[in-house]
């Protein structure tokens, strides 16, 4: 029997899941920000003891962490310098030269991770073809060392113009620094992100450099302490792309770890999609501050090459730092249980994007919150039972929630508290539905005919209405949604992706050069994947990022996973045109096509345990469910609705909406017209009647 541990360090809790051949137990311990390995060791030794196991029994540890993200958000990374091409000192600050809000005169732009005084330049210049236009001034490079010393720099990002086309100058700068100051942490843009577009490449490299000493320290500390505690198994790290990599890779490219928690959630959804054979799914993760939506096709999440971290303006697109890394593509909206509702100037209700968070939290929590939130609206509507919330730890104050809705919204707009609550819920659901629809449409997909997989504290409450708005007829609410990310880690493959810019016209494709590039990318990826999944033959995926000559956005087109030959060119053009037409309805006959970048990914599946089967009780006597008054969203009137206890549901039992299904950390609201039943996997299955 294979014994595996999954650990997810979040901002508040560190979740630990122990998997014994598919049988799972979980624990939550408080995160210890000053020494995160403490919580990890605490959590795993506790869970092993409870299971009567020894550290030496564990075969594999899977780990994800928000430490890198938090270091960026809190600007607590290393003292980091940027070395760049003379004349381009401010690329990190100039950014896109745009405002993320057209009409707001008072916006603040994202603060670069590296301040101007630590942005240093050297004379050199490489052009778009990789040719040297100005030789690197090595004397100037050496002269920078005194500046680095004086500023106490621990980590250096080296990012020169067009280094993806020719990394020589970056490598020579790195060699000089490494020889003179071996302790400096060095991140080269030609390693971290060898792709065209200097702002994205340099920001990604700067972010990598910024978190690297911290992450290297943490991962080293963790490995040492695990070893000392008696763990001798491999440790694999969860990346933002939903794949696992070794500690060594994680320490070199820690920027790839930033979104590992949400990626775990998407992998969980992918596992469910696979188990239930769902060709097309949509995962919906709604927590306290944001909602995240991800499309899954063939049980695989959609992938992207860019992610924005540290959105300074309340989750507004464009207000953060762009990172060019392989990432599970999710749309994130400032819509969570804690999102604040208020009247707007048009006599309507505005929900979010700001949130009351967990402190003070919604008014109903009675912890000093005064502004009505989505959760308050849900409580007033009766669909979050006021008694016994959070496993009985908290009773919710429905009257206070109603009072806040009336005072802050109802009085201004001439609504009673219940109608204000209906409005709040309708607006937030519509906002999420619009984001999901836009997200799907931008990729040439539809939302209808997908199965919605809902997890996160607030998602099961809102999932049914969201599904209605998206034309979705089937929903899944999985078990263990509270530790969903860590459970997802258990299902993740070992994988690694490389993307490299090499601009070429399709009709003048230098096949040999492309094949040589792929050989290089494959070599890099094989090394990483073989270390994490020794002896497993990885699956290979090759992608060309293509566009019509003159366009600015590339679309990914699949390539055969082998060397290209000239006869592949016609099928590749056809494949591009087909993909383009799917995305944009028509292609442009006769226009020249080019490839800007080439990507390769290797994926080695980790041996899977079967999904845990839920032992449903069959011996239970029929008991009348208790009932609650719940407001119907269509009519805004209260009606008597049965409340079921999820743990007591029996397989085969069918529950017709309207109904509530309560569990420790959330409630599923089954709307009229939908029927819920228990799937053998333990998940709740909700279908339109």
């Amino acid at each position, binding site marked *: 029997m294979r014994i595996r541990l999954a650990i997810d360090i979040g901002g508040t809790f560190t979740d630990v899941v122990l998997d014994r051949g598919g049988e799972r137990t979980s624990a939550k311990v408080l995160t210890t920000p000053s020494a995160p390995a403490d919580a990890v060791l605490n959590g795993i030794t506790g869970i092993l003891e409870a299971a009567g196991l020894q550290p030496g029994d564990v075969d594999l540890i899977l780990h994800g962490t928000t430490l890198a993200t938090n270091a960026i958000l809190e600007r607590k990374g290393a003292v980091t310098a940027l070395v760049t091409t003379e*004349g*381009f*000192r*401010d*690329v990190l*600050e*100039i*950014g*896109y*030269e*745009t*405002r993320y809000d*057209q*009409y*707001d*005169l*008072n916006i603040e*732009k994202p603060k670069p991770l590296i301040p*101007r005084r630590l942005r240093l330049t050297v004379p050199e*210049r490489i*052009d*778009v073809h990789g040719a040297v236009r100005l030789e690197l001034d090595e004397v100037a490079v050496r002269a920078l060392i005194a500046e680095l010393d004086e500023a106490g720099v621990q980590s250096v990002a080296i990012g020169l113009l*067009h280094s993806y086309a020719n990394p020589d100058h970056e490598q020579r700068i790195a060699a000089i620094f490494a020889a003179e100051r071996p302790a400096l942490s060095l991140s080269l843009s030609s390693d971290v992100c060898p792709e*065209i*577009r*200097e702002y994205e490449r340099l920001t990604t490299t700067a972010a990598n450099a910024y978190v690297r000493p911290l992450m290297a320290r943490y991962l080293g500390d963790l490995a040492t302490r695990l070893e000392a505690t008696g763990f001798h198994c491999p440790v694999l790290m969860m990346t933002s792309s939903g794949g696992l990599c070794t500690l060594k890779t994680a320490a070199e490219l820690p920027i790839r770890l930033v979104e590992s928690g949400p990626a775990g959630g998407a992998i969980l959804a992918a596992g469910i999609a696979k188990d239930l054979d769902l060709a097309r799914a949509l995962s919906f993760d709604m927590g306290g501050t944001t909602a995240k939506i991800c499309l899954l096709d063939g049980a695989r999440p959609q992938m992207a090459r860019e992610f924005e971290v540290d959105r300074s303006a309340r989750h507004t697109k464009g207000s953060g730092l762009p990172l060019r890394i392989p990432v599970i593509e999710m749309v994130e909206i400032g819509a969570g249980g804690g999102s604040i509702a208020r009247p707007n*100037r*048009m*006599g*309507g209700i505005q929900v979010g994007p700001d949130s009351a968070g967990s402190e003070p939290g919604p008014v109903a929590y009675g912890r000093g919150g005064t502004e009505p939130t989505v959760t308050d609206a849900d409580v007033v509507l009766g669909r979050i039972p006021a008694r016994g919330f959070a496993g009985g730890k908290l009773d919710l104050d429905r009257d206070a929630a109603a009072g806040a809705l009336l005072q802050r919204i109802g009085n201004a*707009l*001439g609504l*009673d508290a*219940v*109608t204000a609550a*209906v*409005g709040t819920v*309708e*607006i937030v659901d*519509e906002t999420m539905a*619009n984001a999901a*629809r*836009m997200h799907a*449409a*931008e990729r040439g997909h539809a939302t209808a005919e997908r199965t919605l997989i809902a997890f996160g504290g607030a998602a099961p409450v809102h999932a049914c209405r969201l599904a209605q*708005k998206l*034309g979705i007829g089937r929903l899944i609410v999985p078990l263990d949604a509270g530790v969903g990310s860590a459970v997802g880690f258990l299902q993740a493959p070992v994988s690694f992706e490389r993307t490299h810019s090499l*601009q070429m016209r399709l009709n003048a494709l230098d096949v040999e050069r492309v094949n040589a590039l792929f050989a290089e990318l494959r070599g890099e990826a094989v090394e990483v994947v073989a270390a994490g999944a020794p002896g497993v033959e990885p699956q290979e995926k090759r992608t060309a990022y293509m566009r019509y000559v*003159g*366009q*600015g*956005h590339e679309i990914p087109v699949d390539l055969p996973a082998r060397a290209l030959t000239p006869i592949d060119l016609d099928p590749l053009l056809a494949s591009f045109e087909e993909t383009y037409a799917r995305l*944009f*309805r*028509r292609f*442009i006959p*006769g*226009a*020249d096509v080019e490839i800007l970048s080439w990507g390769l990914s290797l994926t080695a599946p980790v041996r899977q345990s079967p999904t845990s089967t839920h032992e449903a009780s069959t011996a239970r006597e029929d008991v009348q469910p208790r009932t609650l008054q719940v407001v119907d969203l269509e009519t*805004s009137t209260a009606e008597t609705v049965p409340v079921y206890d999820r743990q007591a549901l029996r397989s085969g039992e069918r529950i017709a909406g309207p109904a509530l299904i309560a569990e420790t950390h959330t409630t599923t609201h089954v709307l009229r017209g939908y029927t819920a039943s228990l799937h053998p996997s333990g998940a709740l299955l909700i279908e339109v009647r």
Partner: protein
Amino acid sequence: MPNDALADIRFQVMWNRLIAVVEEQAATLLRTAFSPIVRECGDLSAGVFDPQGRMLAQAVTGTPGHVNSMAAAVGHFLKAFPLDGMNEGDIFITNDPWMGTGHLNDFTLCTPCFHQGRIVALFACTSHLTDIGGVGVGPDGTDVHMEGLYIPLLKLADRGRMDLALLAMIRANTRQPVETEGDVYSLAACNDVGCTRLKEMLTEFGLDDLDAVGAFILERSEAAVRTAIAALPDDTWRYAMTVDGFDTPIELVATMRKAGGRIAVDYTGTSAQQAKGINVPATYTSAYTSFGLACALAPDVPNNAGSLGCYHVTAPLGSVLNAPYPAAVNARHIIGQMLPDMVFGCLHQVLPDRVPAEGASCLWNLTMRGRTDRAANAAHLFTITAVTNGGTGARPTKDGLSATAYPSGVKGTPVEINESVAPVLFWRKELRPDSGGSGRYRGGLGQSIEIESAIGADFELLAAFDRVRFPARGRAGGGDGAPGSVSLDDGTKLAAKGVQTIPAGRRLLIETPGGGGFGEPD
């Protein structure tokens, strides 16, 4: 329970949906456009209109220059092609500067959207095409016909069939035929996407048309803006600003009158129309003036016929801000983008804590043209517009933004992308220290830029810059921003407007202007 209240909530939901529909329309355009200034910079607009031609929603994605100029265009289409003659699959097109969005480079397309056999809405979109023939981008023309191909209000597609003769005419009249035709298709596709989504919305909400929700949107928006305006005292404010002009300075004079829930801005006293292409059609004057008012007074009210209808903008016919056909108007943005500063200059007198100091304001688009080794087309010619910016004016409580577009919403172009598209080599592009005006809050910084041919050839700069002679002024005691400058690395001063040759081996030096400061320095 009050059914009106519930109905209101349903209308709000539909309003949000309609905005989502036009955002998707805009996103489609952004992703499929060929013209770099559209796809990399968002120089576009998209909106949905009721059958009477009233705009109900406009994508926030886009540029203020199209704010209500595109909206007016739909009215012109409806006059030329009445609704009852329109068929499903028809598409209408123009680039008429006075009917559309102010210069020939902007193509506006309008598509009727049929649902259950009748027209429920019109979708319109506009984007900026890189080259439309003529003397090219810049103020060098002396009448509109020198500025390129002039397409009146025409039918582009009849019942789904594109007019191939018109497309051939367009291809033959641009230096970039493939891209230009591609952009026409991209515009058509984005209207199609909007219509498809609208029909889905009508079906989901069980509606036959947009009449009721349209009335709700217009009424609520107008009321919100009127309330915002009514909070100001009834009064009149004046502001004047001198800008560089083509070769002689231009005086801009605004008189803002506020009465009740209405604001009127009139530009009487402004200089007369100019010989070169920096003239502004009235529709574009109205766009940027309304945008400035919206930013200052009601930034959270979406654009539509109701909200925009509260602002009344006029300028004397024959002035530079209302130049009639056949005036040259290609670089109309140079002065048009100064108009929010005029609005703020007036409003500062009544809202001293709300509006910023003057900024660089007009884009510093580096449009370059020459021979290329990149096989861009049979003629081996390139045209490229590298979008760059100066600094914005300091805010009453914050510094100005460095190297940031305002009022334009376009994005700057990456140096590496510019160099991959055209044979140019940037030797410098960084912030220009101390270029922001001093004050309690400092103006945003401009940039220093150096460019040379990458193939040792001459190339042309199509200059269209301002704030070189007259910098952005500070407010409330703040200092002026640094003026911009255009020169060669051998010290030769270049003109800020007009086509000039950058000789092989020489570097073009550009200093973009800083924004004005706000408040007395501490």
